[in-house]
């Protein structure tokens, strides 16, 4: 095969693997929007906390970050519950200017608490799979990325199935569709919303612990991840879990192809252009729910 074609295929392959992780990073944001119309700009900060959980586990206790996913889920879900009870419960139903600003306020507070606790410098965690590569014919992929992708795909599928099949998931979807009607049939919407928001935040933390196996963390990492999370969610469709996961994969492929075929410093610029095009022409994304 032609070398350029091989390079392009390699780029697409690593794009899919990276993109799966962008997908799991983004599904929490999409869930919170789909159920409560909350755009949580502090989502990236929760990912950052999940990454620090991985760092502490790996550095201080010698535990692989991938082994403590349930713990980082629980811890960030707890932070999410607090955030919901203090701030976001006032803003359910409409993504207003005040709600977006409140989310930014939360993001600043969470980021600076992390900076005061952990310091501003970048930290890494190491996984047992770090530095190992798998070779398929002419292609090679890092083992951590394969495992991260597998975890992301399984978690996304599990969340999607839970929302579709379980009784709790049905109440969540009922509240999302029509809050008042759901309350009439006996669903406690505050209880359901708190749970859904905690789930969204827990997913962010878990995604962080997956990401930290190959990506260093710092207090500012939450802000720097937010663009890709926003783009993946918008392309896939705010509110759709599976769509957001596919949006993440699209982002990963576009980013990696740009980086390998054109210029790695400008790898995200086509994504920003794509975001503007989607917002102008199809703001609901590929699979999104209608927004007010």
């Amino acid at each position: 095969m032609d070398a350029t074609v091989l390079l392009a295929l390699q780029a697409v392959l690593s794009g899919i693997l990276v993109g799966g992780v962008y997908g799991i990073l983004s599904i929490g944001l999409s869930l919170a929007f789909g159920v409560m119309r909350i755009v949580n700009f502090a989502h990236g900060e929760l990912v950052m906390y999940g990454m620090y959980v991985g760092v502490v586990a790996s550095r201080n206790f010698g535990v692989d970050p991938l082994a403590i996913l349930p713990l980082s889920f629980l811890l960030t879900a707890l932070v999410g519950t607090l955030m919901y009870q203090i701030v976001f419960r006032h803003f359910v139903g409409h993504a207003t200017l005040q709600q977006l600003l409140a989310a930014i306020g939360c993001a600043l507070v969470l980021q600076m608490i992390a900076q005061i606790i952990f310091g501003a410098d970048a930290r890494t965690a190491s996984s047992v799979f770090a530095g190992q590569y798998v070779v398929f014919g002419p292609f090679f992929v890092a083992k951590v990325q394969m495992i991260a992708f597998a975890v992301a795909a399984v978690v996304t599928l599990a969340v999607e199935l839970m929302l579709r099949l379980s009784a709790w998931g049905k109440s969540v979807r009922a509240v999302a569709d029509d809050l008042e009607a759901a309350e009439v049939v006996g669903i406690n919407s505050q209880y359901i919303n708190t749970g859904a928001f905690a789930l969204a935040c827990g997913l962010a933390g878990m995604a962080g612990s997956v990401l930290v196996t190959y990506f260093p963390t710092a207090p500012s990492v939450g802000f720097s991840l937010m663009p890709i999370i926003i783009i993946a969610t918008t392309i896939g469709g705010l509110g759709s879990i599976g769509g957001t996961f596919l949006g993440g994969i699209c982002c990963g492929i576009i980013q990696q192809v740009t980086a390998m075929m054109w210029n790695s410093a400008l790898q995200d610029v086509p994504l920003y252009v794509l975001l503007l095009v989607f917002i102008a022409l199809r703001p609901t994304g590929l699979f999104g729910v209608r927004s007010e």
Partner: protein
Amino acid sequence: MENRSAAPSVVSSQPLDGARWRSLAAYVVPIVIVAALPLLPFVNNYIIAATVRALIFISLGQAWNVVAGIGGQLSLGHGVFLGLGCYTTGILFNRYGIPPWIGGWVGMLISLVVALIMGSMTLRMRGVFFALATVAVSLALVQIALHFVDLTGGGDGLALKFFGNSLWAMQSRAPAPFLYGSLAFVVGYYWLTRWVLASDFGLAMQAVRDDEVAAAAAGVAVFRTKVVGFMLSAAMTALAAVLYMQFYMAIDPEAAFGLSQAIQLQLPALLGGLGTAPGPVIGGAVMIFLSEVTNWGSTKLGVNGVDILVYGLMLLAVILRAPKGIVGLIFKNALAGSSR
């Protein structure tokens, strides 16, 4: 958004003598105090420089207030226009010797064009998508500015060539000339905001902010109103950016387009009172005062980032407890009749 159009009428034009004198004093006295600062015995350059910082952020905050406070459109990427203004004047001056007196207008024109394009693409949608798009554009510009090192200086930033005290280059060793320049901006933008609030166009913006459907039904061209409001705010930001660039003498991609800078552009209006003319003035003064105090405190404690933590807490406190900002707290009684 609730109706805040009543706030500016606090300084009303009704012929009540006592109230009129008080309202006149309310804006003449601060101007006189700031203008007389360099003459006072205990005032050193540090205090003057802090005052200039406050005045610059008041001007920038007033510009953001037009699109967000009056127009109700949450631009999270106003750093775009600050950065375009700074980089345009800086590059024109360093490379071609064009003074900021001209470069500033070029930066403003570029910002108008960018705002027109951004606005036309994203303002047809309601609410959240405009906010997301502005974030995306500002972060894309961070990457672009980092990449074109020849033009922008990359991550090291762009420093103006220093000419000493020079009116032509709009440069000065002492901060006092900037005090008068930025004071002129604050006064000018205050009156511009007052004028916009009272004009037909400003009323259309507020109608769109309060209820798009009702505004459209009443014959307001919703989309055009939003785009023009965004362009006005962008032009005001880019022009005030000249002041920022000449005072700080340097700009880098994070300081221009980064999210934390965008938040500093929003805080004056948010703290003071969104959609009011005095809001950004009071809020900007409070913001810079608090940041000076916390900077001093965090150096003493040896902890970084306390100022941003305080900004975040202030933002949350204002939104949850005092959505009308400090102006709303002060003029609670004056507003009581009109709030719904």
